């Protein structure tokens, strides 16, 4: 018998091997992730620099600092104002429609039943479809030659309804695709929210015979507000940056009908090779999303705290 296991651990000298100091440990553990992210921070700073330069890929010799000129140009640039208008319209319309629709569906499916659970799982599928592929699917369905939706539009007397190829209806078409993809996101978030609400107020209201519309406005909605806010901000931030659906569907067309920020920046970079303008556009978009995401993160943290507390 050796004495090692009957004897308590001797407080002798430490075993001779590499040991990380306790204070350094957290930094060491997160270092790889941080380095990866710093690698992402560098191009970000580069983009800031580009936005302050006159820089065209086609004329590298003319590259020079012009400081705020790219931004100043925007003031008198109708294309910029069009971009801003299109982006904001797109974000607002999609999010409002998705919110109303998502809330409606969540309320429909609120009660736990086999059918409701099945439907809510099925509704996840559009959300799991890559937005670019979703756009392609709708492109096939709205094809003027054989698209089922073009055919149906003709049946209900809309005649030659050209969907995304018509400047009049292009926005409507991409909004429908966005609604198709992202409504389920709002729906499942609100459904989780609805199902996590405490039941007592509802039971009390039911006992007292309170009208259901009143219950909805005075109990359900206020209690659901943090979830609604989280879902809305999340979606506004994403929607104002939408690229995949619009680019895959129309590449910003017809004309400049759908040149939202990221699409316009992409076209500026790769087609007009105007790097400076492209970067300045993205910086403005970034400022908008940064402001929104700060509001979002505050609200989101509150919700997260609460959700963890319940768990």
């Amino acid at each position, binding site marked *: 018998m050796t004495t090692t296991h009957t004897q308590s651990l001797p407080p002798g000298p430490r075993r001779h091997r590499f040991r990380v100091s306790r204070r350094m440990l957290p930094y060491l553990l997160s270092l790889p992730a941080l380095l990866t992210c710093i690698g992402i921070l560098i191009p970000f700073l580069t983009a800031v620099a580009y936005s302050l330069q006159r820089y065209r890929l086609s004329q590298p010799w003319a590259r020079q600092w012009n400081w705020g000129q790219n931004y100043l140009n925007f003031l008198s640039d109708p294309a910029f104002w069009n971009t801003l208008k299109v982006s904001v319209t797109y974000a607002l319309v999609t999010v409002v429609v998705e919110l109303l629709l998502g809330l409606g569906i969540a309320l429909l499916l609120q009660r736990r039943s086999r059918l409701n659970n099945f439907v809510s799982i099925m509704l996840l599928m559009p959300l799991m479809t890559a937005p670019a592929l979703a756009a392609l699917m709708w492109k096939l369905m709205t094809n003027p030659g054989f698209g089922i939706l073009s*055919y149906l539009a003709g049946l209900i007397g809309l005649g030659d309804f050209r969907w995304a190829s018509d400047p009049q209806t292009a926005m409507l078409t991409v909004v429908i695709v966005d609604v198709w993809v992202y409504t389920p996101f709002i729906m499942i978030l609100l459904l989780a929210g609805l199902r996590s609400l405490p039941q007592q107020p509802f039971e009390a209201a039911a006992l007292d015979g309170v009208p259901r519309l009143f219950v909805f406005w005075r109990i359900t909605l206020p209690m659901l507000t943090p979830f609604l806010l*989280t879902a809305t901000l999340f979606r506004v931030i994403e929607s104002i940056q939408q690229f995949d659906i619009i680019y895959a569907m129309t590449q910003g067309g017809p004309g400049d009908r759908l040149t939202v920020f*990221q699409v316009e920046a992409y076209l500026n970079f790769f087609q007009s090779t105007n790097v400076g303008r492209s970067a300045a556009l993205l910086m403005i978009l970034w400022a908008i999303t940064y402001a929104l995401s700060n509001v979002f993160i505050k609200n989101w943290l509150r919700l997260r705290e609460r959700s963890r507390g319940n768990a």
Partner: protein
Amino acid sequence: MHATPTIERILRGTAIALVCLFFMFPIAWIMLMSIQTNETILRVPPSVVFAPTFENYQALITGKLETAAGTLEINFMRNLWNSLLLSTSSVALGLVLGVPAAYAFARLKFRGSEDIAFTLLSFRFAPPLLVLLPLTIYFQQLGLANTYGGLIWVYQLIVLPLILWIVRGYFEDIPADIEYAYRIAGHGFWATFRRIALPLAGPGIAAAGLLAFIFAWNNFVFALVLASADKQPVTVGALAFVTASGIQYGQVAAGIVLSIAPTFALALYAQRYLVEGLSLGAVKG
């Protein structure tokens, strides 16, 4: 329980049916298209009566497309392979980088940990092109342009915040005492991390990995900007395919079906974690 009035049940039923119709119809229709020949697809009026065929899938898998103009080489399987490779590797790298960091943020509250965590989170919300456009130039200089390695690194932009925030929540849910108990029993920090923290956060790590895979798979813009044809995943490849194939709509539809099938399968498998993952842990499923 009071009985729901019949009229309300009918209204509810109709509403649910309409919802299902709107959200399921495109998927169903594309699936139908994918098993039709171009002749039946182009029929006016469209009809659901046709003889199903798998020749579209066959063409995609063999990479040979028979058209009136002759045989067309397509390489959609290559896109599928790229998607698989990029998504799997990104998630693997994301887990290796993200799980220890998530642990540090959850357990070892250190100076600046919250700020760093938020900076990482804010990447989730920044316009991707802001980083991608300068990267196209850097990638040229670094020789990373059009390499899997470069793409996998850039994919961390979406994969890492997701993993970090979900897994962090799971680590926070492990009582610290359990880890203390293992330390006191004589095991070092790393042994405790490996044998206590990792197994107990296992389901969360798996869920985060699956979700990150779905996000990586569905990504479009990274590869559009940084990859050329031979490295493109299905999202970009399908778009190019539409342009290249002319009117081979059946094959395009089959390609779409093949491209969305893996994420659908994973989503069904991981649906319990979807709410939590999509809201970055803000809402528990």
